[in-house]
């Protein structure tokens, strides 16, 4: 692992240059909020953004994605047979993604890529993406990422971790993939050399580790909300499932999909066919455990008929079932989007603590 220092003056030129070999995705302000989307030519990622309104999971798990196309015209060749939709898996770089959002991709990967089945749409898109992440110097008040085995400076799921430091970005190069992007941006030479080779880029001195540690400690100390889930692991599924607090917790919940759609780790989806004339597509769409349609049987029977049962499912999945199934912590990176956006103030931090400490 190497750290280089990139002068902000040459940053945007480098980003633009990397476009020759990458499709670029980054945070841009769209009306009130920042969103991740493909950057048009000449468009720069906004490196001063706080948080994107929706998580960037759509980079590899779009809200709606065509899987197959088909033709219902009996005169057509191969009619009624699913054909693969054309895909573009050329290299993509997502610039400015928050470390905890990048971490969420690791969690989604547990679901979409396992020894039994691999979702090709996810796997291909994830593999072709390079994560040029931006550390969070000033976490906002909803951030509780440090409680979730990640944090504002977490470098475990990124290819490059950028740290905003005065007039420079300190770039922690974590993987070869990351180095390849820095090369493409012209921040390093082809064989990864830096010193003196590129104007505006220098190898960081020894003191840089301390500086980054300091910035990291500063950032982490600004995060005030904490959750704990150590005791959730020990309790039995049925004990928490049958706990008396669920109806009370869920009373205010509108069962809308705001939390599930903005969440970087919610992975549930639906498969739908859409036909226009004789041609059609089969698509994979985000779905939400909050809707009754998610689980209702064709007979009309619904195992999660009541609103509060659906709310319970969401939190049981994230905080208990996931822990038990994968033994890799909880299915939450502490980004705080659901807390900030919930119309009814359903707060996962409270609920987690209640599950942890409650009877």
């Amino acid at each position, binding site marked *: 692992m190497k750290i280089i220092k990139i002068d902000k003056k040459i940053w945007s030129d480098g980003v633009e240059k990397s476009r020759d070999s990458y499709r670029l*995705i980054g945070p*841009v302000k*769209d*009306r009130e909020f920042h*969103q*991740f*989307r*493909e950057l*048009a030519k000449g*468009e720069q990622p906004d490196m001063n953004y706080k948080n994107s309104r*929706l998580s960037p999971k*759509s*980079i*590899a798990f*779009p*809200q*709606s*994605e*065509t899987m197959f*196309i088909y033709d219902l015209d009996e005169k057509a060749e191969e009619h009624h047979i699913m054909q693969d*939709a*054309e*895909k*573009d898996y050329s290299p*993509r770089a997502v610039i400015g993604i928050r470390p905890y959002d990048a971490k969420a991709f690791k969690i989604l990967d547990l679901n979409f890529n396992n020894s039994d089945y691999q979702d090709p749409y996810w796997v291909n*898109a994830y593999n072709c993406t390079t994560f040029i992440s931006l550390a969070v110097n000033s976490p906002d008040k909803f951030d509780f990422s440090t409680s979730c085995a990640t944090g504002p400076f977490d470098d475990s799921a990124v290819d490059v971790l950028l740290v905003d430091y005065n007039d420079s970005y300190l770039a922690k190069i974590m993987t070869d993939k990351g180095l390849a992007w820095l090369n493409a941006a012209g921040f390093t030479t082809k064989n990864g050399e830096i010193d003196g080779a590129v104007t505006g880029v220098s190898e960081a001195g020894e003191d840089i580790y301390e500086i980054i540690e300091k910035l990291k400690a500063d950032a982490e100390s600004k995060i005030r909300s904490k959750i704990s889930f150590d005791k959730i692991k020990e309790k039995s599924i049925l004990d928490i499932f049958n706990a008396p607090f669920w109806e009370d917790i869920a009373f205010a919940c509108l069962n809308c999909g705001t939390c599930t759609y903005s969440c970087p780790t919610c992975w549930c989806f639906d498969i739908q066919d*859409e*036909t*226009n004339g004789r*041609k*059609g*597509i089969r698509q994979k769409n985000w779905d939400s455990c909050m809707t009754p349609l998610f689980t209702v049987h064709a007979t009309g029977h619904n195992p999660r008929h009541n609103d509060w049962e659906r709310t319970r499912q969401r939190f049981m999945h994230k905080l208990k079932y996931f822990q038990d199934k994968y033994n890799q912590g909880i299915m939450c990176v502490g980004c705080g989007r659901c807390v900030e956006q919930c119309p009814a103030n359903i707060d996962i931090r409270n609920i987690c603590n209640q599950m942890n400490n409650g009877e």
Partner: protein
Amino acid sequence: MSEFEPKIITILCNWCTYGAADLAGVSRFQYPPNIRVIRVPCSGRVSPKMILSAFHNGADGVWISGCHPGDCHYITGNYYARRKFMLLKNFLEYNGIEPGRIHFSWISSAEGVKFAEVARDVVESVRQLGPAKYFIKKELDDNDLCSCLNKSNPDNNLAKNILEEQAA
């Protein structure tokens, strides 16, 4: 434009206008072949879902016709429909649909002549407007190139401008 033949989805009540269409047929009154008739028990049965569905699936215009007020087979169905249609028409136009795309009429089963006449007028009015522009479902195709992004239309900040103006 002269080659454009509009497709009109026509929703007729079983008791009056459907009879009128029949009468126009057997009486050999000429009317254009652009209308596709759907028969419903009563104009009161017509739901806005049906109108939007027609546009989704490529209709250039929609024409709804039932019994004259007072003649409803179900006594009052068309009175209720009338209020609903007025709101529907105004709301469609508010959403941007041109006034000439959607038509309403009361035609009794004895009015074969009126049926043919209104059919001609409806088709002509939609022909003038040209092919439908709004509420059409797009051709289905691979949408990968845009699907990795959150939808957005950075060039069009119309809503923002107008809302800001309103806030000011």
